[in-house]
């Protein structure tokens, strides 16, 4: 199973994870700046803010567009930040009353513009002092504070006078070649950063004092090579981790991160990991017999039920209620799906034609 999984892995991260067993050089494994995050923002993804409302980040021509819906994607409006090139991806943090979108850096755009909106207002622009990481969880807008993870390895927060560095790889794991790619906040004081790197050091860190001090999540150390952004609220959190053997499992805590329990492992999917959670319920796209399957868990990843085959190329799952939600798969163009039956059924959503073409002829000067 291990070799089968490795052969099927297509993401750079997971391929690298498999290579860990064969290559003794950590520098060769994680030394380059091009290692992709496990959940890259340059793949289609969804962010739901209610049972029928949310956002989709999809490719359009050579650009990425941000679509907003309030009726389950029956209708969408273009909310792509204007006046800036978006072919480096869009990294968003979305809540019912607010949103922040960082423009992925690329080419000569070496500092990421960030646009913040409250309610239905237009975007308010600002600019990060560095480039944002190409990872879906690299930006967080919570409790009125905008934080982001930069390609320089820092976690920065926007203040009234500019940007302040909360932490960074130099402080968290100076010798571990850790690459941070996610920041998540439970409230104004409790938050998480997650990353990837060679097996050994912790891949997730937690703060309970608004970022002044950070402690590694012990359960994410050892064989883990990547931790995905956690999901949860209050004291209960789920933290998916990927190990060097090509399996993904969910760590869960019910005491705010003091103690952790590891669930049973699933083989990683052939593409970008797609997963979603709602309380103790978890949905994960993994592999079975060489093909992608959707697995569902009602006990925080302790046990899994095979729900069937998802559409090919699934890159994002977003569950909004009792066994229902939305999904998106990569392709040309990307496809949106409604999910029902606890992940067993996928029905395509027809998007307007302009979605696929509006970014085809971006401007320029």
């Amino acid at each position: 199973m291990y070799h089968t999984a490795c052969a099927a892995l297509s993401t750079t991260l997971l391929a690298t994870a498999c290579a860990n067993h064969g290559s003794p050089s950590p520098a060769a494994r994680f030394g380059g700046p091009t290692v992709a995050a496990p959940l890259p923002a340059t793949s289609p993804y969804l962010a739901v803010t209610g049972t029928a409302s949310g956002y989709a980040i999809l490719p359009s021509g050579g650009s990425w567009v941000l679509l907003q819906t309030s009726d389950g994607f029956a209708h969408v409006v273009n909310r792509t930040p204007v006046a800036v090139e978006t072919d480096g991806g869009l990294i968003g943090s979305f809540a019912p009353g607010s949103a922040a979108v960082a423009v992925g850096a690329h080419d000569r755009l070496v500092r990421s513009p960030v646009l913040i909106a409250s309610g239905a207002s237009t975007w308010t622009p600002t600019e990060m002092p560095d480039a944002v990481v190409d990872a879906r969880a690299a930006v967080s807008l919570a409790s009125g504070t905008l934080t982001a993870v930069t390609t320089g390895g820092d976690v920065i927060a926007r203040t009234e006078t500019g940007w302040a560095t909360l932490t960074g790889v130099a402080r968290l794991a100076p010798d571990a070649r850790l690459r941070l790619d996610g920041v998540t906040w439970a409230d104004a004081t409790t938050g998480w950063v997650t990353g990837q790197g060679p097996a050994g050091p912790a891949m997730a860190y937690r703060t309970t004092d608004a970022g002044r001090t950070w402690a590694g999540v012990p359960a994410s150390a050892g064989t883990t090579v990547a931790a995905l952004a956690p999901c949860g609220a209050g004291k209960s959190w789920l933290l998916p981790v990927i190990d060097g053997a090509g399996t993904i499992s969910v760590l869960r805590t019910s005491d705010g991160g003091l103690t952790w329990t590891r669930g049973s492992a699933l083989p990683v999917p052939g593409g970008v990991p797609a997963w979603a959670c709602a309380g103790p319920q978890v949905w994960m796209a993994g592999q079975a017999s060489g093909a992608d399957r959707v697995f569902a868990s009602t006990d925080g990843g302790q046990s899994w039920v095979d729900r069937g085959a998802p559409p090919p190329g699934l890159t994002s799952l977003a569950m909004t209620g009792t066994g229902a939600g939305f999904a998106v798969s990569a392709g040309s163009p990307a496809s949106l799906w409604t999910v029902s039956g606890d992940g067993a059924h996928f029905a395509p959503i027809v998007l307007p034609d302009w979605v696929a073409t509006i970014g085809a002829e971006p401007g320029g000067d």
Partner: protein
Amino acid sequence: MPGPDAAIPDLGPQLFALLLRCLLWAAVGAFVFGASISLLSRRVPAVARWREILLTAPTTRRSEPPARAFLRVSLGLLWIATGLLQAQPKMPAGFVPEVLGPASDSAPPWFGDLIGPLARAWERHPVSADTATVTVQVGLGLLLIFGRRGRLARVALWLSIGWSAAVWIFGEAFGGLLYAGASWLTGAPGAVLVYAAAASVLLAPWERWDRGTAQLIARRFTAVWLGIGAVLQALPFEEQWTQDGISEPFRTAAGEPQPALLVRPIARLATVATGHPAAVNATLIVLLTVTAVSLWVSGRTFVVVAGLALCALTWWLGQDFGVFGGTATDPNSALPLAVLLACALPGLAAHEATVRTAPTLIVRTRNIPVGVVAALASLALGLTIVVPIVLASRMGGRADAAAVAADSNGGVRAIPPRAAPSFRLTDQRGQPVSMSALRGKLVLLTFLDPVCTSDCPLIGNQLAIADSQLGPLAQQVEIVAIDTNPTFHLVTDVQAFTDSHGLGGLTNWHFLCGPPDRLQDVLSAYGISVDVPAVGMIEHSEGMYFIGADGRQLAYLDDGAAAQLTRTYAEQVRDEIRSLLK
């Protein structure tokens, strides 16, 4: 409010006037050269022998086969027509952006690398380059017309082939074969290849013309060309089965200014092709194929005439005579192909004895005194070889005076010295900057988008280079950029751009921002337009004003993107500053 379009005169006419002057001098120089050769040949035995070597044929034949004479003179006239097209008013300034540029845009990147040196040389010396091109082509035509026989005639034919190859590669981008859309109608695989083919046929010994072998080659070459046309029309990736593909030549031709009588059938054909693309293309393929096969197997008069008719109709309806539009570099393929095919008309395959009844188009140079022929041939030789060599030898140095004033695609232009519109904005340090506060120094004023990822960072980088190359003179200069982005208009935005692109260390650099409406007022005052698309970067016009210490506009550098192509943006800025500070 005046913008750059209103403020800056169109220097195309000036360049054309310079071209005419240059051509006049070239003609005078060549005439003097030719007359000198002619005179010297009477008095100096060595020159006389040289004349004999050049003009004496290695054959004892006295009269040229009429079909050959027809093709030779026709090819000569075609070269002259091509040369005159190259002397059109738009050519000095328009050759790179309107001829080379579109071909380069559609072709693979290596083609851009290939023609890059030529484009840069042309942009620096548009008048010299165009003059050389005109004289080569007119000279070739004259050499062919007056070079009936002898070594000079053969040199002219070989030069025709060589020049055709150069034009095919650099001027026609391999006849349009490098990108989709090559078709019989567009002239693919390249009109100038027909010139080369005609010259090659003319190289055949006269005896082969008597036997009809040369005419057979000409006819079959035409058949092959028509066959290639049919194949190009049929290939799916050439897009001739699509509405846009098949109708594009007709639509383009219908849009060119020309007499209504000529354009009406073309417009009608454009409508039919748009409505029934497959039917029109299929009909064309059948016509081409049938004609090609017929010409290959038969040289009978009606077959050749049918081929000529197809060429004639194509030249009119599909190629719009090849000359409308102002930037045509040749009459397109159908006319030279018809000329080549016409020499295969059985009526022209006459024996030496019938030469006196040949068409009057043939210039009977044998009746012209040999001294005059020698002088004209020498004049042509001067135009073809001497003038281009003299001009080319000058192109390695500084740009033409004309190019300094206005190179063919971007470049510094003198503008009327009126007061620069005022503004008061904030720079990347948060400091207020106004036009009036900059008085006393030379101001470079440009317009940039702080989150742009295409030209603006390059322009910023070039400005930094220019500033560093100025040395102590930089103290007399202030470099000012106005933020063009209505979304990213804060101090942090322009500060980020400054820090990201190597401009942070320049004390004389000011990237100005402000409220969008105030920025818009300034941009409008300077004629800069901004468009914000639904997705992607803003689009804004580019340019740089050179404003004197007294606050008056002195010069304008157009189109930074074009300057990038020539890689002389920093040089142009630096040189212009040095010139203005003298």
